[in-house]
Every structure is written in C-alpha cells, then in structure tokens.
C-alpha cells in the first residue's frame, strides 16, 4: 500500500449509479464542505448496502492498525544506516513491560516502562556526557502509522537538524520499542541521559485515518513527567500534516525547548499559532 492509497475512496459510487432500492439524498453534494458521512441515502430507514460496507471497511482498517504487530525487522532494516547527525548504528530494539497486545490495551501503566532486559540493553548505550536529543520510535496504537511514516520522517528531521545554523545536535542511537506508550520515552531518555526526547508514536486510529503518527517532545525526560510538560504534533500523515511540515514544526519546537530549557504548556504559549481558529464570522446556507 503506497502513501496515497491509504484507503479506497469513500465515494467510489459514481453519482449516476443508483443503488437498487435506495432513496438517495439530494443534499449529498454538501460533502464538498465536510468529511462527515452525510447524505448516505437509505434503504427504508436503514443504511444502503454499499454505504454500510464502506463503514465496515474503514473500521476493519482501523482495527488492523491497532492489532497487526509492527514489523520491527523491516523497520530496523530501513534504518540500518541512519542519516547524520544520528550515530551510524542500527536502531536498538526494546520492549515495554506489557508482554502482549491484550495486556497493553488494558494496562497503560505497563506500556510506559521498559522491561528489565531492555533496561539492561540500554545501560550499555548510555554515554558519559549524555546527548542533546534521543529519537524514540514506539508502535503505540497504530503499527500502520509507524511502519509507513517513521523512517521517512526521520530522514527529513535528520536533514533539518544537520542544516540547523543555531545549534549542533548530538543524537543518541535510535531506539524502537514494542508495546509502548508515549511516556516510555521518559524512561529511555533518563537512561540515556538525553536532555530532550522526541517520541514518534502510532496514534489511536480514526475511522478515516488509520495511519497517523504523533510526535511528542519532552525536555529533561525522566520517569514521572506529566503530559503538561510535553508538546505534541499530531495527525502526521500524507493526508493530514505532511511529513516535511511536521519536521519543520518539530525543529522549531526543539530549538525553543533548548533555548528555554523547558517543554510543555509554557513553550506552546510562546510558539502560538497552533490552535485551529475560525476567526471570521461565517455565513452558512441554512440561515443565508
């Protein structure tokens, strides 16, 4: 599946093709203004067959994104020789304390900590004077998002970091974690003595977005950090926030975090412009 074929077109029914036994809704043309599933038509008062199956397909894709395990071998292979300024070594493979998916889904606390083997593995990778930044890839709730976008995003971010005129960035070895949550980055960052950690995590899949990647930045990572001390860039995928733009936005946040030696609410307030706003008074067709 290529990036631009994340799913079938929702409106694959040609306008002129009328499903047998279905009452169409003439207001379906309003789909030009919203992705909401309006004007689906009806069979009696129920969903027409094809509309019902479109929904089932979208849900099936989201379910698969949650449950299909991340192909860690393939991901590590694609990052075998990571671009500078990342150290030239293959990613370190780690695992949370959640042994399987069922445990993971019910025990978020276990997904936030490394298991004992992983902690020992990481101890060998720690540097005496630490790192400026650790990049941590976590499967999270969408293996699709990580498998599709993590490696290309890291290429783009590495390029931004290499070109940064303001700071030199010393990077920790890449880590890839199975059955992890966002906060497991704190555990990794602390063990690597990283001054900042960025977690690339598969986001909870939406019905029409099974492949979103989330980016979480935490300054001074250590076990016990709360979400108020993080900055998040969400919905990173070709059909959402493009990878290029996400990399630029993350670099901006990284530099701000490094200047202010902090992350979270205070940082976001000063960066501004992230919130979705509709400042203009808008008309709509219902009130003219």
């Amino acid at each position, binding site marked *: 599946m290529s990036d631009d074929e994340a799913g079938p077109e929702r409106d694959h029914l040609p306008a002129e093709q009328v499903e047998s036994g279905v009452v169409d*809704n003439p*207001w*379906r043309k309003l789909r030009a203004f*919203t992705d909401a599933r*309006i004007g689906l038509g009806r069979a009696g008062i129920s*969903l027409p067959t094809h509309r019902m199956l479109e929904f089932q397909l979208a849900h099936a894709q989201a379910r698969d994104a949650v449950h299909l395990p991340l192909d860690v071998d393939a991901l590590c292979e694609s990052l075998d020789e990571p671009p500078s300024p990342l150290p030239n070594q293959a990613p370190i493979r780690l695992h949370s304390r959640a042994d399987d998916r069922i445990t993971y889904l*019910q025990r978020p606390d276990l997904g936030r900590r490394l298991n004992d083997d992983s902690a020992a593995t990481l101890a060998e990778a720690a540097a005496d004077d630490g790192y400026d930044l650790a990049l941590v890839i976590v499967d999270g709730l969408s293996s699709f998002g990580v498998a599709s976008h993590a490696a290309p995003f890291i290429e783009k971010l590495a390029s931004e970091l290499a070109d940064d005129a303001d700071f030199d960035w010393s990077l920790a070895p890449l880590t890839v974690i199975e059955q992890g949550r966002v906060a497991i980055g704190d555990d990794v960052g602390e063990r690597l003595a990283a001054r900042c950690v960025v977690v690339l995590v598969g986001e909870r899949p939406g019905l029409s977005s099974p492949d979103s990647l989330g980016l979480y930045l935490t300054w001074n990572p250590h076990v016990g950090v709360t979400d108020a001390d993080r900055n998040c860039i969400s919905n990173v995928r070709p059909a959402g926030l493009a990878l290029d733009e996400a990399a630029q936005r993350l670099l901006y946040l990284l530099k701000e975090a490094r200047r202010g030696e902090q992350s979270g609410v205070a940082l976001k307030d000063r960066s501004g412009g992230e919130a979705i706003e509709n400042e203009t008074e808008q008309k709509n*067709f219902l*009130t*003219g």
Partner: protein
Amino acid sequence: MAAPYRYTIGARTYRFDDLAEVMAKANHARSGDRLAGVIAETAEERVVAQMVLADLPLTVFLEDLLIPYEDDEITRLIVDTHDAEAFAPIRHFTVGDFRNWLLADDTSAEVIAAVRPGITPEMAAAVAKIMRNQDLILVAKKCRVVTAFRNTIGQAGHLSTRLQPNHPTDDATGIAASILDGLLYGNGDAVIGINPATDNVAQSVRLMKMLDEIIARYEIPTQSCVLTHVTNTLEAIEAGAPVDLVFQSIGGTEATNSSFGFGLADLAEAREAALALKRGTVGDNVMYFETGQGSSLSADAHHGLDQQTCEARAYGVARHFKPLLTNTVVGFIGPEYLYDGKEIIRAGLEDHFCGKLLGVPMGVDVCYTNHAEADQNDMDTLLTLLGVAGVNFVMGIPGSDDIMLNYQTTSFHDALYARRALDLRPAPEFDAWLTRMGIFAEGDQYRLAETLPESFAHSLSRLPEGADHE
C-alpha cells in the same frame, strides 16, 4: 473504620477490610477496576462480595461514608440533602431486599419517585452490582424522568436524539451540512449540541449564535448547546450570548471535578445565570451534563473506589441541578476502563439504571473507540437494550463517524431503527414539527418523506459555489 466484613464458603473464609472493598469486589468485571487494583481476584470472590453486599443494611451507606464528609463536597451534598422521611419506607431494607422491592409488582413509578430523595448514589450503585442486565432494564423502565425546555423529553414511548454536528475546524457550512442531514432524518429533539474544536469563549459564542439563528429560522422546537467549559458558558451569558443549556462534564468526586476545573458553586452560578435568560418555552431545565465510568480514576481522584460507584456519585451531582439532559459517554474513555463490547454494554445499562433511579434524565452515548474490542453489532445490541429500558435520548451523528472526536456513536439511521423497531416517538413538540415540515411522510409516523421539504430545498439553493461536485 468499620469492622472487616467476613463470609465463609466451604472451608474458605473471605475477608473484606472495608465497605469500599466490598463494593469494588462486588462489581462486574471491567478493566478499569483491574487498572485501579480494586477488582475481585477470582470469580468466586466476586460473587461472595455480592452476597456480602446483598446482606448489608441500606443504612450502612449513611453511616460508613466511602469518601469522608470533610474531604469531599459531593459527600457533603449527598449527606446534607438526604431526605430521612422519604427514606423511611425502605430504611429497614438490606441491599438484597432493596432489589426485590424495586422489582416488586406494586413498586410503581410513583412509589419510586416518592422514595427517591431517600436513595443515595451509593445505595443505587450497590443494588446495581447485584442486578442482572434484565433487572437493570426492567427497573429503569419504571423510573420515568421527564424534563422540558422547548420540548418535553423522557415520556414513556418516546426516544429523543442529540444531533451532534461536530466539525474538526468548526467550519460553519460543514456544521450546517450535518445539521441539515440530521434534521431531515428526524434527529435533534434532545438538543443540537456541538463539541467545539477550539475551546474558547469567542468561538463558542459564534457557534451559539449560529445555532440560535437556525432554530429560530425554522421554528424548531428544540434547544441548542455548545459543549464548552461551564466558566466559558458563564462568560458567554455575561456577554449576551443566546445560551439555552449550560454544559459541563462532571465526575463523582470533588477531586475529579477540580481536575476538570470547576466546583459545585460554579454549576449553581451558571444555572442561575441561564435561568435568568428565561429562554425555555415549556420548561426550565437548563443544564446538560456528561459523565462516564473511569473519569475519576483517569484523574487519579477515585479514592480507591471502583468506577461504577464513582459514576453513581456523579448522578448525585447531576440531580441536584435539575438538568434537561445527562449523558453517560459510555465507550469513549477506552479499553483500559471498559475493555470490550460486553463491558461497555453492562456499564451502559448500569449507568442508565443508576441515573434513572436517582431521578436523572439519562441519555447514553452508545459508543466505542477503534482500540476497544467492540463494533457496530455491540452498539446495535446496547441501543436496542436501552430503547427497551426507556432511555431518554441517544446521540445522532452522520453515519456513526464523529470526524472531530474520532470515535463512533449512534447514527441518524440508528435512531430511526430504534424508533421503528421499538415503536418509539420523538419528543411530542418535535414530532409535530417533523410532520408539519414534511420530513415524516403523511399518515405514517415511522416513514420519511420521499421528497425534500420545500423550506430546506430553498436553503440548499443558497449553497456557495463548489457544491456541485463531490
């Protein structure tokens, strides 16, 4: 602390240290109680805890407070408003007797209503734990709770819907498109309620004005709500915004509500402000609350209680402020609190029962997220069961897909399914409007008209450019 509770079965003696432990271990299994570390360790221990609970007198809940009076304003609200006179007829009951009495032939809606001020949230929570799903349905069906603002919600034989036209950027035309879709599918009598994408006062006021104009233009007998923080709504009222209903997410402990950024005094102040606007035409229920099991644990504010008990205490808060609508968003919180369809269905029935028993006008957001072990079939089951149980309202959104909140809830079509399958009508005033507007077919109250009603056809002709192709 009270003496430990003991129960011997065969050679084994079970011991529960306190009332909270009995309550938690008697709870039907769910992931949130496991996460909190309060769940029964074995299936046998769970039933033993239910047996212990069944033999406890109801008065224990007035004496052995699960969260101390001095620590929690919701405990104080429950204790200070308890009506001993109303409680008198059931005062001598155990929890098990209470279940039998609720199910008894002679315990009518009127009898329950008379006793209701004597029932505390903890008593409701306790009896729910020893009821099967069919008990929860049968008793809830007796407990009619009718409220009114511009229409009348909750009468026997009626099912209302909240039209939820959310849009990821609050785009006015996108929201209007979903509203039109919902109205033409006969939805929106409980409220037209938007979760704003941006939670600030200016944005909320814009949406309030838009909804007010739509309701006025088409003379729709319904009410609007923008689901923003209670303090934002209060500011909007002070700025002259057309506020019908005041919204707030509420929990069952003071610490939960503190984490949400409000206290009971804020609810009281906002309610007074909304009442002063006198915008209701057939009633003055001006509050809209949302709840859901797991919110207290999520805020680390559960005091070691199980999540169903915390939830029942939230209904103790709700009933004090005489809401038009209270909605348990049962499957939204995720599988770490309610793991699968079975747990979501059970929790939905418990919440609806506890709310109705306490006199709260309950609706249920029959919903799930993509990381829960649930699907559309589970939602069909819960919707049908709640329809039988007499739920006041459910959600209605286009095609079950909330594109802003990223979860699945009941669709406009689903509401029509429940109405047709269970012979349920919309709110009477809204029902009459649907017929008057030509949305329902003439002469058949469960059939939609084949043609687009004239006034909406006219509206569609005003579409901006770009709408002719998808």
